[in-house]
């Protein structure tokens, strides 16, 4: 297996793909947004229970490749308990990692996604769940990665 490919499919990603965390509908959710990737059919719904400005609980549901599923799973573990400003900051870091391959300063599982930058077509997979989460925080219902090219 090539170095690029083993960077892409790191243990952390395989683990989240096989045993996704916080997967399924959140019965107590007061926000939900749905993201989809029309060119490949990946789908991800993110459920939030916002307590004021704080993400009190979060889950995701959907289908897609290992990268999209693992990213959404890891994201839920990172966002739980965060304020919307903290969540936006985390997304900024994540986005930089997947687009540039630059590893984060603090040690974090997010670093596992640095390998994505070598596969430009997969950046959309890695950010799908995050887009849906940000949209849910804003109170929007649906996003598609085609209109969220950033």
């Amino acid at each position, binding site marked *: 297996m*090539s170095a690029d*490919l083993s960077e892409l*499919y790191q243990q952390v990603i395989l683990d989240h793909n096989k045993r996704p965390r916080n997967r399924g509908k959140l019965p107590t959710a007061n926000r939900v947004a749905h993201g989809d990737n029309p*060119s*490949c*059919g990946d789908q991800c719904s993110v459920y939030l229970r916002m307590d004021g400005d704080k993400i009190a609980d979060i889950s995701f549901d959907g289908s*897609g*490749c290992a990268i999209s*599923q693992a990213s959404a799973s890891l994201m839920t573990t990172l966002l739980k308990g965060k304020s919307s400003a903290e969540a936006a900051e985390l997304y900024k870091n994540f986005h930089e990692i997947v687009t540039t391959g630059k590893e984060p300063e603090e040690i974090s599982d997010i670093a596992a996604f640095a390998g994505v930058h070598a596969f430009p077509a997969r950046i959309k997979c890695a950010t799908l769940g995050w887009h849906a989460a940000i949209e849910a925080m804003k109170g929007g219902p649906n996003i598609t990665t085609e209109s969220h090219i950033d």
Partner: protein
Amino acid sequence: MMTTWTNVRHDFPILHQQVKGKPLVYLDNAATAQKPKVVIDALSHFYERDNANVHRGLHTLSNRATDAYEGARAKVARFVNAADSAEIIFTRGTTESINLVAASWGSANLKAGDVILLTEMEHHSNLVPWQLIAQRTGAKLRYVPVLGPNVEGGLDLAALDGLLTPEVKVFAFTHVSNSTGTINPVAELCAKARSHGIVTVIDAAQSIGHMPVDVRAIGCDFLAFSGHKMAGVTGIGALYGRRELLDAMPPYQGGGGMISQVEFFTARWKPSPERFEAGTPNFADAVALGVACDYLDGLGRDKIAAHDHQLAKLAYEKLATLPGIRLLGPGLGQERSGLVSFSFADVHAHDVVTFADEDGIALRGGHHCNQPLMRKLGLTGTTRASFYVYNTAEEIDVLVANLRKTLKFFGA
């Protein structure tokens, strides 16, 4: 015995390269096929020697370009056995051809209460144009179902008679499914439709370069196809339409080249094909398409069909041995086109495709512009390997070995 042509791979310059350090194994032919050198050369030859606008000029180059363009139309007409070159309209491809029929024939012939009959296996390009004209005219869509959890039964022909009610005005269906490899009995479908006075539209995107396609033997009213899937270049395709129907249809777009007389407030148009080719046509690519027709006929389209089928059968047999695989479309012993489409319970198609690319193998993963069908089958997508004249049995072994590695990696 596998049908092979000596040196056919030498005709395709793109095949002779390495991808990620491995010899390219190009198995994404249903998306677009590679081009033989004669076609690439025809295009540069045209631009280097004959290029000028067609039908307009009185100078030598313009005459040469016009002859080449109309010569290509005659070749395409012969390629599908049309009765008359005027029955061939050059378009951007299958999608534009179907949009042309839906918009032009549809606006003149459909009204509220009419039914447009489609099948559940249509590509979005033979579905969305009909949704659009249905919205504008008030016509309704109806679908011929597919049979079996993996579409192994093809179209439900027993249900067809009940669906061909008097409200049905047009029946549009694919010749070959791009996501299952099903070959539909097009002549039979057309005969049934015709006996009810229903106009037929065939999406031949996946059949045109792969098997003999004879519009008169099939008995269709319209047939749409793309050049790029049949060894031609991108940006050109054609619509075959029966003369009588074309002559009664309004223009699709307005502009130069399609009029006989223009006043400030009115215009009259030329007959087909000019009526449907507003503006400067894509003549250079059309000329290259004519050369692609010659190239394929040189190989022999029944031989191409046999070669594709043998590869698909071999691939199906070998893939069937992989753990947890779900194969779509006709089973062994049934007719199938030159593609195999499959999924794994635990490994997503995009991961499969990414791992294949590491071994230089080009596959397609996703819904193949077939979302309603995928949803019906409970799938978000499949992985597809599709074959053409230059593919070999050895390449199928490379594919199967790669898939085994991928499955092992994901612990599936």
